[in-house]
């Protein structure tokens, strides 16, 4: 397709490729000029290429998409500057999406992946260490729990994804210094991998013994969507707290097209009398499939009568119906996340690479390349979560001044002044400069 000296038989003058051929005589290779681009221009060009590639992909112009991918690959690199890295992962996601048109190819290429539990645990730990987000979320969660459980002698905490022991170690330590003495603490951890839970149980019991707190850890090995609520062994009348850190959005995964066809049919029936922005279609009453799983999960949670439920979620709209919507939003959010890394970690750091590839890269791939039930990374904005919890009869519990103070202090200790905390609707948003990235909110049962 492309000869190395850049000459091609392109004749029309209305394409970027034309310009490659005009360049070639003067420069040795067609992409020399690209390397001489300053990073800002390269970044802008990358954005343009990404958008046009995505557009081609969305319209099914595979040939054009392919060419765009080729061009991007000349510029993008996982160890370049921020924009180059972002472009690398976004194009990988777009390529995966294209590949899905040939399911056989896709499966063949993705079948020999090795998923190592220890690598996943390492990446999670890296995310915890490198960014303040999880720590702030934990601080706010624990503070909300401590406040809600004032005076309680027995406290039961359910962690919807028990992967990071640090959160509960902090809670154990905090509870041990309570003026009225520590309560009997029971933590139920849910996680699909048994090894993670075992390690967590070990560390937490060790910590509790050190501090002489009556403590019990229950492991529930299960995926969240298949959770059997009886296994949680919640006793009636006990003081219960639920902590959900970046977990709930995966329950929004559903077969979008079924609901969309339903929407289309109803729109045709109503004669376009229905007005709604594309954003909220996914949770409209006309698309029952979209939130059935979520609704039933929230109802079950409500049925447990928790005293407080603290939810941390990504605060970006990555659940749009069309590829372009999601891509645009994702570009902004992940640009912010990659910027965080750029401003605090060296470019040659292997850890940074791992986080970018194994954590963010995978999320991006899921958002861009997957559809329907496969697409689990359905991040939504805080206001939608607020609506959802409200509908499920949860009442908002404002996060306390004390918790926010601690959170801010934590951010200062990072000594990286891009991080901010903002308050919105009595919930907390953790931002990078002006871009909100994560939201933390607390809820209790409204009777």
């Amino acid at each position, binding site marked *: 397709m492309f000869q190395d000296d850049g000459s091609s038989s392109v004749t*029309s*003058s209305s394409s970027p490729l034309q310009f490659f051929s005009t360049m070639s005589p003067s420069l040795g290779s067609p992409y020399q000029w690209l390397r001489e681009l300053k990073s*800002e221009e390269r970044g802008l060009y990358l954005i343009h290429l990404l958008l046009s590639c995505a557009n081609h992909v969305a319209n*099914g112009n595979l040939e054009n998409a392919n060419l765009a991918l080729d061009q991007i690959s000349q510029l993008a690199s996982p160890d370049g500057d921020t924009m180059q890295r972002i472009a690398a992962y976004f194009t990988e996601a777009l390529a995966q999406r294209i590949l899905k048109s040939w399911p056989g190819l896709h499966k063949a290429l993705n079948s020999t992946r090795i998923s190592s539990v220890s690598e996943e645990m390492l990446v999670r730990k890296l995310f915890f260490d490198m960014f303040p987000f999880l720590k702030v979320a934990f601080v706010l969660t624990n503070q909300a729990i401590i406040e809600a459980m004032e005076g309680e002698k027995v406290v039961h905490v359910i962690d919807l994804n028990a992967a990071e022991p640090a959160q509960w170690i*902090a809670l154990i330590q905090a509870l041990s*210094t309570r003026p009225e003495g520590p309560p009997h603490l029971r933590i139920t951890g849910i996680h699909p991998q048994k090894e993670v839970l075992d390690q967590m149980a070990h560390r937490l019991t060790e910590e509790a013994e050190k501090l002489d707190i009556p403590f*019990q850890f229950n492991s529930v090995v299960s995926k969240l969507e298949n959770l059997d609520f009886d296994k949680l062994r919640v006793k009636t009348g006990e003081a219960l707290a639920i902590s959900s850190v970046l977990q709930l959005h995966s329950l929004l995964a559903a077969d979008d097209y079924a609901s969309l066809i339903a929407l289309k049919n109803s729109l045709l029936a109503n004669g*376009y009398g229905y007005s709604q922005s594309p954003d909220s279609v996914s949770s409209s009453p006309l698309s029952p499939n979209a939130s059935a799983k979520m609704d039933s999960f929230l109802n079950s949670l409500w049925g447990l009568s928790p005293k407080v439920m603290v939810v941390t979620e990504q605060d970006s709209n990555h659940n749009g119906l069309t590829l372009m919507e999601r891509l645009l939003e994702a570009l902004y959010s992940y*640009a912010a996340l990659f910027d965080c890394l750029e*401003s605090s970690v060296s470019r040659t750091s292997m850890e940074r690479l791992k986080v970018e590839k194994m954590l963010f890269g995978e999320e991006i791939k899921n958002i861009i390349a997957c559809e329907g039930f496969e697409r689990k990374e359905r991040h939504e904005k805080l206001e939608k979560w607020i609506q959802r919890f409200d509908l499920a009869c949860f009442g908002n519990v404002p996060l306390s001044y004390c918790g926010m103070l601690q959170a801010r202090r934590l951010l200062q200790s990072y000594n990286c002044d891009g991080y901010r905390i903002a308050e919105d609707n009595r919930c907390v948003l953790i931002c990078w400069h002006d871009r909100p990235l994560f939201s933390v909110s607390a809820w209790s049962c409204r009777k």
Partner: protein
Amino acid sequence: MSQDHGLSVPSTLKGFVQEPNSNPNPNPSSNQLKRKRNLPGTPDPDAEVIALSPKSLMATNRFLCEICNKGFQRDQNLQLHRRGHNLPWKLKQRTNKEVRKKVYICPEKSCVHHDPSRALGDLTGIKKHFSRKHGEKKWKCEKCSKKYAVQSDWKAHSKICGTREYRCDCGTLFSRKDSFITHRAFCDALAEESARFTTISSTNPQAAAAIPQFSSVFRQQQQSAPGSELAGNNVIADGQKPRLPLWLDQANNSNAMLTPIGSSSTGLPELSQMVAPMNMFGSLSQMQWFSGGANLSMSSSSSLPRGIPKEEEENKAYNLSESMTSLYPSNQSGQQQQQQQQQQQQQGLAHMSATALLQKAAQMGSTRSNANNSTGFGLMSTSFNSFNQTDKNELHKFFKQPNQQVADNDQNLNELIMNSFSCPTNMGAVAGSSNASLLMANAKNASNEAERRLTRDFLGVGVESSRPLSQQELAKFMNLSSQYGGNPHHRS
């Protein structure tokens, strides 16, 4: 709670409860607190068995006055009422001969008490039984939403609901002593706790004193806070623990979102006093934990160059990768940044953050609302022709630039894309021309068909081509719906 139906445990307990009553009185039935009950439903063998239908069992006020239609539960009451109407009345006398005892059976066939050998001796009893077991629960406790079929049960429960006398260590509440005792004997938490306590050595206040190494350190810091705060020094000399003055300072300097509890923004002493009595010690100790962790990977001192403390403080896992990174080839155009992490330096070398780049692109790339759709993209591609002339100038030409707010950025980018959606035929034209120019050698029709075919497969991950919706259709009819609904994303 109806515990008197065949449950052996409570009645033995009841028996148990009365044992200690040492009453010298030989007559057992008059002075005891409760009459010891037999197992329910063991009737006198000579009794007459009466089987009432559910209707008559549930009927109230079966005796009606013919004058005023008032209903009475007993015939005697009706007779007395008839006296008031000056009607002839007759009160039945208690018959002198032996009255044969009557027992009643439950009309519900599946019930234990349907069998005459398990009949109940009391009419009121059988009525209540029937309601409780086989009836609808119409009475609901306000406090705990527990439901009852019999009003007297409901009343009795309401009196004691919420008075909660007994609480097990596992957190469950009981209003009755007997059920509480039973539960306790079998409670999980206790069992495991006792198991745990047998294994670990007995601990005590000394451990508790050891814990506040966090909080005591913190207290020390706090006491030194006012002094060091006055120095206005933000540098954390002690690399491990962020000191109070830092956040106190920040708290004072922060924006309106934080309202200090002290009335003035310079109320430092108030803030530090506030810290002590509240539970903040415990909660702030968790802060230590997190900040300690943070300092492992992030430098906490602004006086040292950031790269160095990071290397020093990294633990083993990181050290391994550290040696690897030195081997890792860096193919930056002129940037061998291994130790340099500071944003200022990178910015000094003209690196814009990705966020800034996106904003810039959006500002440049927004098209005016009445721009011709096909030229939206066409313009971009034609501009690239002259890219070789001057980089910057052409970039500016290439992205038009109205003055837009930052907040509109994604809207602009969105519009850029969405505008091209609203005219699919134009897109077809553009696609067709770029196809030709790219020499993929497809005729326009063929390429459109190919697009359509590919589009279908594309979205689906292998769904049958009978799927009616494509990405284009989707966008099209969303635009249609939004057109009628005034979606701000769509401009006509």
